């Protein structure tokens, strides 16, 4: 198999990958998210992925910290973060495309690191600071990555765009002077079918420096 598949490239390892024991990335890279990540809100809630008490299969109450706001919801334990965001909270910026940790359309940021929300259970997202595309702009101003996406025509159909913006934001959060190779490494867990990468690379490169 070609080592050129973006998702197989070690540079594409996305931190904080999800479902314990099932994540190819966590397995390959031996990195997991800091277990002690401190959420801005309390975590002593009925359903915890890391507890030994069985939960489900019926809905359980969980609390998420999304864009700094507390969200209480009831989900079956099998519900992924992307489905909770989209179906329950009507936060439809993140998209579900491959549903299998390959395309990055569902990318959100958890405790500062980009994660595939299709491969993280909603109950696992408890206690983490989740940032979604909805949270990085205000009515009057966009995040520099978003501004640069527009300036560089880094979008066509736009379905991959929110995921790429979040991946790009993670790049620019990490460094204000990323090289083009850093930018490519940070983006290569995301797929765009329309072929917007030329603008996307430039947008993220410039936004980090903005």
């Amino acid at each position, binding site marked *: 198999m070609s080592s050129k598949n973006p998702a197989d490239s070690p540079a594409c390892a996305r931190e904080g990958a999800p479902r314990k024991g099932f994540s190819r990335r966590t397995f390959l890279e031996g990195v997991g998210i800091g277990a002690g990540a401190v959420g801005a809100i309390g975590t002593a809630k009925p359903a915890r992925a890391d507890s030994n008490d069985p939960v489900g299969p019926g809905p359980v109450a969980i609390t998420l910290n999304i864009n700094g706001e507390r969200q209480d919801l009831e989900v079956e334990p099998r519900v992924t973060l992307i489905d909770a965001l989209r179906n329950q909270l009507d936060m*439809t910026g*993140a998209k579900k495309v491959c549903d299998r940790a390959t395309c990055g359309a569902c990318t959100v940021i958890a405790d500062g690191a980009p994660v595939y929300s299709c491969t993280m259970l909603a109950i696992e997202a408890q206690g983490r600071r989740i940032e979604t595309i909805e949270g990085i702009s205000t009515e009057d101003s966009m995040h520099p990555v978003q501004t640069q996406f527009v300036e560089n*025509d880094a979008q066509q159909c736009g379905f991959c765009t929110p995921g790429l913006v979040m991946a790009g934001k993670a790049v620019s959060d990490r460094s204000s002077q990323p090289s083009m190779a850093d930018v490519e490494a940070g983006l290569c867990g995301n797929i765009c079918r329309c072929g917007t990468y030329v603008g996307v690379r430039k947008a993220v490169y410039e936004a980090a420096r903005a």
Partner: protein
Amino acid sequence: MATKYDWPAAEDRSLIGKRHNRVDGPEKARGTAKYSYDRNLDGMLYARLVTSTVPHGRILGIDTSNAEKVPGYKGHVNILNVGDEVQWVGAEVLAVCADTEEHARDVAAATAVHFERLPHWVKDEDVEQAGTANRVTPAKDDTKGPDIEEAWKSADATVEGYYGLGIITHCCLEPHGQVVDWSGDEITVYASTQAVARIPADLARGLSRDESIGTVNAEQVHVITPYMGGGFGSKFNIDTWGIACAKLSKQTGKPVKLMLDRDEELMVAGGRPSDYGKVKIGAKKDGTLVAYEAETWSTGGVAGRGSPPVPYVYNNEERLSQKARHLNVSTNIGPARAWRAPNHPQAAVLTMCPMEDLAAELDMDPVEFFKKNADLTARPEVYRYEIDKCAEMIGWKDNWHKRGDSGSGPVKRGLGLSLHTWGGRPHDSTCEVRIQPDGGVSVNLASQDLGVGTYTTLSVVAAETLGLQIPDITVNIGSSRLPISGASGGSTTVGGTSASTRRATVNALEELKGVVADALEVDASDLVAKDGKVFAESDPSKSLSWTEACRKLGNRTITGQGKQPDREGGKLNDSGVGGVQMADVSVDVETGIVTINKIAAVQDVGLVLCLEQCESQVYGAVIQGIAWALYEEAIYDQATGKMLNPDMEFYKLPGAADIGELEVHMVQNKYDDRGVIGIGEPPAISPGAAISNAVANAIGVRVPTLPLTPDRVLEALANA
């Protein structure tokens, strides 16, 4: 002489042909653009398909008794019935719905469909084997030009080779599907579609076939699609899932969402036919091409699919002897759908690759060879210019070497090129432009923006015509209740919609001028709209700002109508473009991995409306070309009849690090008087052939079939 609808002369254009940010860019970047998949309506149910697990069979039984007991079950509708035949894995059998997405999956899983298996066939490349299996329909020879036997005798060099490319699938990131809300007599459909105006009739027809539903009129159906996440030719119809979704909505009295899963999307909702061919081509010593002969075969599912137009671009019927024969291979796979420039990418591979092989045989620089034969194309001057321009962009003179003459290290570099053509004639379109007393301007038509920039191009057309700026214009598309405009296929949208919008805007402005003329006491024909003002050309002091001018309307809103086609007063569009692409690649002969260093693309499209969005179309087309040249291919297993890679892990697409450097040059100011011509398809044609030629130049042998995966590269090297 310019008549009243003609595009403004170059010196009078302030917006046309310039760079503009995409009008819908901020909404997309913010994630607030609402796609069909994003619609969450009150009380909405979630639907799933239950599909065929066999590649060919007859349905013996459909059992929903367990499914109906699953918590959250709300309903189901049959798409096929007992006794019906299925012809591919993934064929839609029924749709089920439930209160949540998770429950809908449970319900689908609890539904049992039993099949009687029938013989199947999924292999297309080995045409003899397919013939033995009775899967091949031959067509007759298509002969053109001077006698081919004489031509072969006159040839000093001939090359015979085998070339081909596998099946790819559209893999739109937003899958096919829709949300349907059937309430009372009104059916609202949020469909991910390339054909907003066509879906109502399509759905009404599909529903009316069901006696239990009765007659449904297209007028009852309202399609709403402000945004859609990719189509590339695969989203023209409502499809079985759209009809089933509407029936579920009627049955349950609730809105229902049915979007395909990724595996369904890849198996049944996309598909560009394969094409393989044995090609013979010959030229004289000086490089004059004299004959081309091909036997080609392809599949696009059970019905097969159209043949590639070969020889491609180089096809002068007076001077080039041509013979082509196409065989249709019938396979039990999801049916083909139109894919950006149907049959042309295949034709480019089957023509430009043999040509490059022949140039190598003649010991000629392919750039010289392709240029020398430009007279065999429909537009020799265009291609000669574009080849020179592209060669300059890629540094052909400095970087090209003779085939295989690429040093002793394991990494070999090579250059290759390809030419293409496309029609891109305008589709029919009607448009209504409104000017309001408060100065607001809206452009209204039932078109759609697939990501190509329709919002932006129509804003530019209206703003340029009225002397306003882009933000002054509201473009309303994506609703079937607006004036009818064509489906977005064949690169017909920009030519059609820009013409109807230009005409409607000019007509609306005429009416406004009439009102302003009275107010300023000047002749209406003396008025111009420019820089946000309406003023008398003979006496610019007689002037009103745009808002003042519109206020003169009192409480009346002006409505200007425009349509395409319309022969009156001006040439706004055309068809027929040319393009050239060149690729610079590196091939590691130890691993077989091909890396793109650079691709240069030169493209003419008549008059460029929005330069940046035009370039984006070309970048995108080239990147998609890199995908099918190097990575993506639908792989089928004859034993099970299944597609082996219906996911995005093994159906590979390139990422941001895999595309190298891309450079695009849009030809401007040379062919502007032709008017607007579509851009979506042409640049999607050449990348595969150009990359394949560059690889051959690098490693000294032809890798016959695309995608040029490492195993194929290594095999070609081993066979050399």
